[in-house]
């Protein structure tokens, strides 16, 4: 029961933050290339990588915290639906190369930031001598 409440809270906060960050980016870059969604997904994946390592650490994250931050916050902060819709719009506007660039940057960029987040936390933990 507590995990459902945690997912709901994390999900609401993640969605609102996504909307806010996207708005800030769009104000600066305009609406042609979806930089806002890309930045949201890249940063959310970095956080997810860090959390996934912490969740696997002894005495790291308990179940409710994992539900709040991973399934709730990160799950809702990042989005596939806006990514697909914006990619479709780029194709429809005849911007096929930008659409393909968006796909490649999103897929491989997110893998890279998730790996960086995970590796960063692993390094920190090994330096502080925490038990993995």
């Amino acid at each position: 029961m507590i995990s459902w409440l945690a997912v709901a809270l994390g999900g609401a906060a993640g969605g609102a933050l996504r909307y806010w960050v996207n708005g800030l980016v769009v104000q600066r870059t305009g609406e042609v290339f979806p930089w806002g969604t890309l930045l949201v997904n890249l940063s959310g994946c970095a956080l997810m990588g860090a959390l996934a390592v912490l969740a696997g650490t002894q005495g790291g994250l308990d179940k409710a915290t994992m539900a709040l931050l991973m399934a709730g916050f990160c799950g809702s902060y990042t989005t596939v639906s806006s990514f697909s819709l914006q990619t479709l719009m780029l194709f429809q506007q005849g911007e096929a190369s930008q659409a393909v660039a968006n796909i490649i940057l999103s897929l491989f960029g997110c893998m890279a930031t998730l790996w960086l987040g995970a590796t960063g936390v692993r390094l920190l933990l090994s330096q502080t001598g925490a038990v993995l």
Partner: protein
Amino acid sequence: MSPRAAFWVALGSLLGSLSRHALQQWLPEATWSGLPLATLSVNVAGSLLIGWLAGRAMPPHPTLATLHRRHFAMTGFCGGFTTFSLFTLETLVLIETGAWSQAWLNLGLTTALALVAVALGFRMGRTGRKPE
């Protein structure tokens, strides 16, 4: 960011996250050829839905005429329901366990199916509207 918009996005994201979590509880270990099916399904279904909503939101007879309905349903619900971070995490876990072909399949299938779904949804939303 207006507080009103943030409220509708947060409420939609809360419901989207809970729906995703429910599916992940019911299909926790469901895989097809080693692919994490729950995340794949939410991302494809959420893309279909946002495409349909985007089609319905077009003039001349938009169903989602008011901005707060779009905030609630598209940015909120679809954004909270779909997730790039869980998708990327599961793909990297496949890579770390040596399941390279499943990882590539997950990347390719998620992208291809999400894009087909959003295009299909968009067409259905546009053409399904009754002319008046």
